[in-house]
Structure formats: structure tokens, C-alpha cells
């Protein structure tokens, strides 16, 4: 007897055209978000607050009501949505520049207030859509179009460890960093996204997942080499792990 083992989640648009670069991890991340929405039965009750950058195109893929926020303001807009309609499921999908540079105040204060929101942040150590400039998570030594000899302390200072900072906020219920460099880690990433969604559903507080992702185009690497860089360089500085989970008793 035939058994269906796979189907496209109901949260996905049927006619979506794939617009990310070859090898980009956004596709995998959007897929995981969509699977979690479907598996938790959230699709019809969800509002997405989208950001600026490559991440904004999530509304081209997901069949959920979406509001496009100005750069960095996704969590302020999400706060307004959730406070207006507390029974809706509200999440943001942002890049590291959006979440942790131009939007750091909005992000941090949403966590501090303990907004019942879920935030997904793609960390690819660069501004992708504008062509690979230095961002808040660019690693020391990393060459970008605005750090032509590599990120040095004298001119650029240090990169930010986002998941650790968000975990320090008292209103945060869950904060984790995951990676999309390998299949086992992709499975872990999905578990973390689901957890960040569930803490909102239970009204426990702010749920956050930082996702280490590759950007082969702007890193000037093949997709395979890009994933090696995620493993060998990014994961050495940005250690994957669960930094806060108030649902687990210590």
C-alpha cells in the first residue's frame, strides 16, 4: 500500500518562483519556517512582519498575511500587530543587519518587554542584497566590499554575538543559535524554530533563533566551500547552542 511520506506544507504558495541565489541558505531557512507553521497548524492565523534585505522575499513564498516593515523595524511593527490582536501568531524573519545593527534597539526592547513574538534572524556575516558589505556580524579578518583588507579592530570593532545578547534579556523565553551547514544541523535548526514558535503560543515570552547561513555569491565561494566556511570559521566564533530556554528546569 502506498503511503505519502512527503508533501509541500500548506503554508507554501503553489506558484512561488525561487529567487534566491544558487546555494543560498535562505531557501532552506524559509522552508523550515514554513514547515513549522504548517506542523503547528498556524498558517491561517499567522501574520509575518517582514524586513528589508534578501529576507523580505519570504512573503513571496509563504501563504501568510504579511506586513513589510522598514529596515530594522520589524519587531516594532510586530509589537503593534500583536498588541492590537493578541490572538494572532506573529513572527519576524530578518537578516543580521536588520536585526542587530539598524534594528538593535527594536529587537532588544521587544525581548526586554517579553513580547509574545517569535523572531528568526539569518546571520550570514554580510549585507547580502546590497552586494556584500561589512555588517554587525562580519568576522574579524573577513574581507568584504567595505573591509577590503579584512575586518580589523582599529577601524571596525568586534562582531556581535546575537543569541547570547538576546538570552540576557529577562523577557526572552527561548534563544538559540543554529546552523544550516549540514543535514543534522538543519534538523536541529527546525527543532529550535519550532521551540521559538511554541513559547509564543504558550504566552511565555520572546522566542529567538539565530541561523548561521551561507552567502556563496557575496563570499565568492561555491556552495560547498561556503558551508565549509560556516563550519570552520563562523561556528568557531558563533557557537551553536541553546542559550536560554525557560521551559527546561535546571
Amino acid at each position: 500500500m502506498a503511503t505519502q511520506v512527503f508533501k509541500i506544507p500548506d503554508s507554501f504558495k503553489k506558484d512561488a518562483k525561487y529567487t534566491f541565489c544558487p546555494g543560498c541558505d535562505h531557501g532552506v531557512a524559509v522552508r523550515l519556517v514554513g514547515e513549522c507553521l504548517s506542523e503547528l497548524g498556524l498558517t491561517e492565523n499567522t501574520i509575518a512582519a517582514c524586513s528589508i534585505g534578501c529576507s523580505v522575499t519570504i512573503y513571496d513564498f509563504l501563504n501568510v498575511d504579511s506586513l513589510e516593515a522598514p529596515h530594522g523595524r520589524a519587531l516594532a511593527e510586530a509589537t503593534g500587530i500583536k498588541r492590537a490582536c493578541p490572538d494572532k501568531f506573529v513572527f519576524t524573519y530578518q537578516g543580521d543587519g536588520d536585526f542587530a545593527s539598524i534594528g538593535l534597539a527594536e529587537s532588544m526592547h521587544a525581548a526586554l518587554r517579553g513580547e509574545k513574538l517569535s523572531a528568526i534572524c539569518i546571520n550570514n556575516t554580510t549585507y547580502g542584497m546590497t552586494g556584500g558589505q561589512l555588517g554587525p556580524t562580519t568576522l574579524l579578518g573577513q574581507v568584504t566590499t567595505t573591509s577590503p583588507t579584512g575586518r580589523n579592530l582599529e577601524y571596525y570593532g568586534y562582531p556581535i554575538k546575537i543569541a547570547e545578547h538576546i538570552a540576557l534579556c529577562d523577557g526572552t523565553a527561548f534563544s538559540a543559535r543554529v546552523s544550516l551547514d549540514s543535514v543534522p544541523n538543519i534538523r536541529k535548526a527546525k527543532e529550535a524554530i519550532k521551540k521559538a514558535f511554541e513559547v509564543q503560543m504558550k504566552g511565555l515570552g520572546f522566542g529567538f533563533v539565530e541561523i548561521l547561513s551561507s552567502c556563496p555569491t557575496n563570499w565568492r565561494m561555491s556552495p560547498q566551500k561556503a558551508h565549509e566556511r560556516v563550519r570552520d570559521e563562523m561556528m568557531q566564533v558563533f557557537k551553536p547552542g541553546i542559550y536560554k530556554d525557560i521551559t527546561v528546569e535546571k
Partner: protein
Amino acid sequence: MTATITDKKILMKGNYAIANAAVLAGCQCYFGYPITPQSEIGEFMSGKMQELGRAYVSAESELAAINMTMGACSMGVKAMTSSSSCAVSLMQEGLSYATSDQLPVVLVSVMRGGPGLGNIYPSQGDYFQATRGGGNGDYKLIVLAPSTVQECADLTYKAFYLAHKYRNPAVLLADGLLGQMMEPVQFKDYPYPEIDNSDWKLSGAKGRDARIIRSYAPLADNQCVYLEKLFEKYKTIEENETEWEEIGTEDADIVLVSFGSTSRNVKTAAKICREKGMKVGILRPITLFPFPTKRLQELAQKVKMFISVEVNMGQMVQDVRLAVNGKVPVELIHKPVGAPPSPEEIVSQIEEFV
């Protein structure tokens, strides 16, 4: 307890009257950050909204406050924020997005001195900020200018109505004088119909395709079509919603044009002029966008002079000149910042012009 509805007039500060009217208008969400001279609005809202089980957030900045308001508006509820001058500057990005997203944001802007930090004295120095906008791109905000505490209340109702009717941000442009002064005011029920927004608001894609509220139009052609439509809407607003007060213009040689708190002294000045035998009338724009351009054009056929009276370096006078288009002289009487020029000062300057 609900907000105050009164049979009789009660004494109230302008800022409280605005906040009370917002609650009575059905404002479900307030987001704000303190700044003098409008902090009473946030103070009133913090207590009242919690008492009524509505939403109140002490935002981390005005940037966040305007975006929170936009988020709430995208859900179709009545939502507002309030601020003043240098902090309204921080909201310009949001206002540009909100016009493009067609979100019914209500912003109360209680003007103080500028530019920069300026001071906390009354001012009308944000006429341009409100009517021209400091945000990017082509857009218009609906701008209502009260001149009494009663109008602070009445035009707050109207700001919610017009914002939702036209899906466009509406600004109540008051100033520190109106915000801080006490005057008798009477609160009636919200007099406007509720606007059906079921065809555009976000609510979750249940039994329909997903909706996207966005301002990003990657293709130039799309943006052209979009802007043409947006400006058709502004034309409709100009045709339907232009509002002004006119006193003694039937036989006037001189028409004084003035808005907001300044117009109060201008009215007294016009009376004094009449007593002196000068034929002086008044045109007080109540909507600054849409501006009563057509009416000024009509008056320009028969009067000898317009004088714009303002507390700034001369901003609205530019719109008066555009309307009059050189037909007759347009002069300016102004004070840079602070209390409006006194009736006597206005009269003596009028006498100099004549």
C-alpha cells in the same frame, strides 16, 4: 469606567482633551515616547488604556512608536501615536512608509520651537514638516489644525475618521500653547461612521489568499501606476475634505490668513481693525492639507491684499502665495517662536502695510 462624555462643558488642558477624544473615538492602541510639550497625552493614555484593557506601549523611541502604530493599523484597528517637533522628525521614515502602505495612522504633533532641540515654547515651525513631509518620495499627509481646546477634541475624532476613510496617515497639528492651556470643552459621542476595512486589513489568510501590505515595487512601471493612483486619492481628498473658517471676507480689502492658536489673536486684531474703519477679514485654514487654495484664488479676485500671520519664519505664506499667484500682494506678519504676536502688534503691522 469609560472616558469622559459630558453634557456640560468642563475645563481641560488641550493635551488631555486630545487623549480623551482619542479614547472616545475608539482608539485601541497607543504607542509613544515622552517629549514636552505633549507628555500629558501619553500619561493620560497609559492609565486609561490599561483601565479599558486596550493596548499601551512605552516605546523605546519615536522610531519604534510610529512603526508600532503602523503594525497595529495593518490589523485594521484604530491606533495612534503622539509627539513633538524634533521627535516627529524621527517618525518621518515611518510616515513615508505608512502613506505608501496606505495605513490609517493617526499622529498628534504638538509643535515646539526648532530647528534641532529648539525649545519648549509654542511654535508653528512644523507647518512644512506636516504639509511637505520629511520622508522620502511623493506623498501627502492629511493635516488638521485646531485653534481651541474644543477643536483639539473634535478634530481628533475627525483625524481618526479621515485616516480610515482614505487609508492615509492623518496628523493633528497642535502646538505647545494649545497642548498646555486649559479651556472649556464638551465631549460628544464619536460622530462619524465606522469604515469597513475587511477587504484590506491583515487577519490571517483563512479562506482567502494571503495579503501583503508593502511599499516595495521593484519594477519602475508598477511604481508609476501606484503613484498615479495615490495622487488620484489626494485629489479626491482635496475635493471633499478642504475645511476653513471665514469671517468678514464679504467686503474685505485685506484678508488675514492664519491657522491654529495664532488665529485667536488674529481674530481680535481683525475686530480692532474694523473698529478703526479698516475692512479686514479672516481666512483660517482648518485643514492644512488639503489647503483652501481654491477659496484663496476666488478671494484674490476681489481683495487688495493677503497677510499671513504665523509663529515661524514664514511657512504657510508660501502656500498663500502659490494660491494667489501674484494677483495681489501677500505679506507676512510673524514671530519666530513663542506666544503669537499680540492683537496690537498685528494691527500696527497691518497699518504699516496699508
